């Protein structure tokens, strides 16, 4: 009986470990899926004055004469370990801060869902 129990625990651990390994592998694969081309597109939308126009308010490495209304976009992975949280912040900053001046890019359809994804991927690399 005890032996069976031990075996069960062991196999459960193996299953868990495999699952964790699998998850992180698929996470890594997600990151890898963002191609250079997609990142370049994201950067273009981020800097475009009629699209993201993020430099109006945020400092971004490589962008000239940034505004200082919002925080500088640095150390983004440390600040937003979860990409989904960063996407939500770009999509509608009012969710976290009702007093924000930031444009509700998603609800007001300032840029498309696809463009928000591209911008999120690019900003996440900063």
């Amino acid at each position, binding site marked *: 009986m005890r032996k069976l129990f031990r075996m069960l625990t062991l196999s459960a651990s193996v299953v868990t470990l495999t699952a964790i390994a699998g998850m992180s592998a698929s996470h890594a694969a997600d990151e890898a899926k963002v191609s250079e081309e997609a990142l370049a597109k994201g950067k273009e939308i981020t800097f475009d004055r009629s699209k993201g126009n993020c430099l109006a*308010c945020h400092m971004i490495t490589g962008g000239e*004469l*940034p505004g200082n209304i919002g925080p500088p976009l640095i150390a983004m992975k440390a600040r937003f370990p979860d990409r989904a949280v960063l996407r939500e912040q770009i999509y509608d900053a009012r969710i976290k801060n009702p007093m924000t*001046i930031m444009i509700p890019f998603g609800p*007001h359809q300032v840029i498309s869902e696809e463009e928000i994804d591209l911008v999120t991927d690019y900003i996440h690399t900063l």
Partner: protein
Amino acid sequence: MKKLSVVLAVSALFLAAASTTYATPEEDQAALKGFFMKKFKDVEESAYGDGAYVFREDAYEQFKEIEADFPPYEDQVAEGEEMWNTAFANGKTYKDCLGEVDTVRAQYPKYDEENDTILTLEGQINACRTENGEKPLKWKKGPIAALSGYIADQAEGQKIDVKIPNEKAQKWYEKGKNFFYAKRGQLNMSCADCHVAYAGNRIRAEILSPAFGQVTHFPTYRAKWGQLGTLHRRYGGCNQQVRAKDFKAQSDEFKALEYFHTATSNGLEWTGPAFRK
């Protein structure tokens, strides 16, 4: 006795609920001015008529040099003076409608009780023209800005003193106040977002100007325009920038905004026309 005071208190509550109580313009101004005084302790109150320059010393020095040495609007002010002194086809002049030139600027914006509307300087210029059989001028730039520039120039040293004389006037003031604080446009920004909360910050390389004192220098010579433009021209530009519905110059919306916006600068000097980047 106790019962009586309860009854009184309850009826007072009902009364308060039944009538809308507005903050007075004095309270609004004290709050707005107080915000800036607290945030920017080094800036003198009287300096706010000079706009965003008060936040950056080097730009302020440049601005003062431009104003003192080669104000770029001088030709247009001279053109405005000539307009003022030239009689209409019927022999009448602007003075016949508007009074002595140095008394005109400080009268507007003004509540007109008879027509329940707001009179503006530019509105009065065109009203004078049509009353005398002349064609009205275009609202935003050109001759109207030249004449309004000359009239503003003649009011140098006079103080802004917008009056809200009664409840109907207060309605116009409230309409303007609501316009100023309401989010608008696809970009979802209010006038106050940029010109109160973030005044002094940079949007790209530009410093956001403070709402307090913003109306003092109109019509203004903007480097971007290369000529004088009226306050309502600037309002239109701001609306376009936040991708909002653009109202026409001298629309009720912009007249109400001008009424509120100017009242918040009561006590500051008229400084128009003045240069802006």
